[in-house]
């Protein structure tokens, strides 16, 4: 098992004929992800070659889902059209038994996301991951299911769930699990935007219920209070050990650190507050990301899992 995606998942690519869509679609297929087609309005009826695989292009998500039975969509469309793409995917999945939407796009206007998330909430069988995230990956025995832009080869199938707000820092966390000979069940990048879909708590809840996952690495960053809320929730609801890191201890207040959401405002959202919340909740804290592997191993041993 794994969470939300597995090797049988059928994936659509929104924006498949664009540079990003075609490039990452090819990388996904090379990782043996089951890409079944894509959508670009006005280009329906064409076929597109992704590595050795040829897949159909549709004009709309409804058409694409009806023809392929897809249950996952990944969005690579430009920021100005991305929220509309999310809403289209959500409505189409809701009418066809539900699905997962993964939005990679960075730089979507925040009010567009407020609107998109409100629309998603009306679709109980639809989940959104992102935007502004690397995506989600479930490594398999050979390749696996890669829905996003992460480098597939750094992963291996295993028992650690990873959830993170950051892109490359997630890869760092993956490398850390590998450094202590642990693989991953599923890695989820929830994204660094202030308004997004799936949050830490959704991921922790899913990992807790997933029999394959034995421990979780959670990577936060400054801004907002999602880490504090997740820590409080975890203290009450999680039996599996969690290792936590928060980026931005040295970030100055009032300055946006790359991600739209990474800002300490009014003295709130500091790394110190988040680390303190982690410690209070019994989360194993790594102050140095290069220590995540060792802290994880300690957590597994203390829970008699190794």
């Amino acid at each position: 098992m794994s969470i939300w995606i597995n090797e049988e998942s059928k994936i659509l690519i929104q924006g498949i004929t664009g540079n990003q869509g075609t490039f990452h679609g090819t990388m996904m297929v090379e990782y043996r992800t089951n890409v079944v087609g894509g959508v670009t309005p006005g280009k329906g009826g064409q076929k597109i070659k992704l590595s050795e695989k040829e897949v159909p292009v549709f004009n709309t998500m409804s058409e694409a889902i009806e023809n392929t039975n897809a249950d996952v969509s990944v969005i690579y469309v430009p920021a100005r059209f991305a929220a509309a793409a999310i809403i289209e995917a959500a409505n189409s999945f809701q009418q066809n038994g539900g699905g997962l939407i993964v939005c990679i796009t960075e730089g979507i206007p925040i009010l567009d996301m407020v609107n998109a998330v409100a629309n998603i909430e009306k679709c109980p069988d639809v989940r959104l991951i992102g935007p502004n995230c690397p995506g989600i990956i479930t490594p398999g025995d050979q390749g696996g299911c890669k829905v996003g832009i992460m480098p597939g080869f750094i992963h291996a199938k295993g028992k650690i769930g990873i959830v993170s707000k950051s892109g490359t820092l997630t890869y760092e966390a993956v490398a850390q699990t590998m450094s202590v000979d642990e693989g991953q069940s599923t890695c989820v990048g929830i994204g660094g935007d202030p308004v997004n879909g799936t949050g830490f708590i959704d991921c922790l809840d899913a990992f807790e219920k997933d029999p394959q996952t034995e421990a979780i690495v959670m990577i936060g960053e400054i801004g907002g209070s999602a880490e504090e809320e997740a820590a409080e929730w975890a203290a009450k609801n999680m039996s599996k050990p969690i290792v936590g890191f928060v980026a931005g201890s040295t970030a100055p207040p009032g300055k946006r650190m790359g991600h739209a959401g990474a800002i300490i405002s009014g003295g709130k959202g500091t790394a110190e507050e988040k680390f303190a919340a982690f410690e209070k909740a019994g989360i194993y804290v790594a102050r140095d990301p290069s220590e995540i592997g060792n802290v994880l191993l300690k957590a597994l041993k203390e829970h008699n899992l190794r």
Partner: protein
Amino acid sequence: MNIHEYQAKSIFHDSGIIVVKGIHCLTVEDALNAYEELESKVVAVKSQIHAGGRGKGNLYNPESGELVMEGGVKIAFSKEEVREYSTAIIGNRLVTKQTGKEGKIVNNLYIETGCKIEHEYYLALLVDRENKSVLVMASTEGGMDIEEVAENNPEAIHKIWADPLNGLSREDSMSLAAALGLSDKSQEELASMLDSLYAMFTERDCSMIEINPLVKSESGEMIALDGKVGFDDSADFRHPWRNELRDFSEEEDVEIRAHEYGLSYVKLEGNIGCLVNGAGLAMASMDVIKLYGGEPANFLDIGGGATRESITAAFEIILEDKNVEGILVNIFGGIIQCDMVARSVIQASAEIGLAVPLVVRFSGTNHVKGKEVLDQSNLNVHTTNTLAEGAEKIVSLTRGDA
């Protein structure tokens, strides 16, 4: 992007929000003419900079550093006072709680008709990331710093949230007005003002609107006496009118240049420059430098679309900071390939010269090849496999230990 008060008020006016009459001025002469034109005995003479706390700030002579005047916002009762205050403001350095010690040179002035105030309130609209909707926040403690009110008197702050699909409900707006203790007529006025503000917020893709103080005049009118407006930069593409409101003198020149290359740069106070791919990893690199006893000189994310040109520009920007005594490059290759970065480092060194110690950590896509490229060059560079090793190395090199 932020704008000046006089610009915010012009948008308020266009959006149907009541403001008092005012005139934007660039010189003392402008200010004197504005006083005549407003035909008001009492006017406010207001420094225009993007930072808050202007009223309680101090003005200094930028050359001599001597104090010129206390307070960046003054009430003038005569033309002579307008002359005195505007002379003290224009061209001088205003230091407030929000500007930092260096302050900001005031180039713009706003002369505004006086207003008879019965009570001052605080009002703000912003996106609440936890509730994923627009939050309206109001307080009876007008003119106060809202963060202090939140700390000392949280029950004075009242909040309502807009429904993302249906906007603000009249019922919520009226209950907010009632919570502020407004009378019937003023309650209606505030509710209408909130409708106008919400429309402005959503139509113009604001990130924040703050009115502090919002005042009730003696005649019961609700007036925006101050205005601070920020826009969501991600929505620039649908608001070309913003270009005309932009005041580049208020932005860090180096951050603008970095942005043009797709780089995200924030200057810090330390001596170790950082060049990293990814915002989270860039923050983590700074944190680890600190853990090993060093101080980061900057945050710099080269982004997923980095090229040789943008990486050279990144080195240039880092080296402009004279405090920089060493640079840590930390790349976890995903889309970005480490060997491309390695060749870019060599090119940047050839073009601009890298006189300071350089430590490079590569991981991920093509990291072995990247390391080879650097090792085969005659560049004086230390390569490491982990972030911790890299941070430890650059800290010891900048200390002169090695």
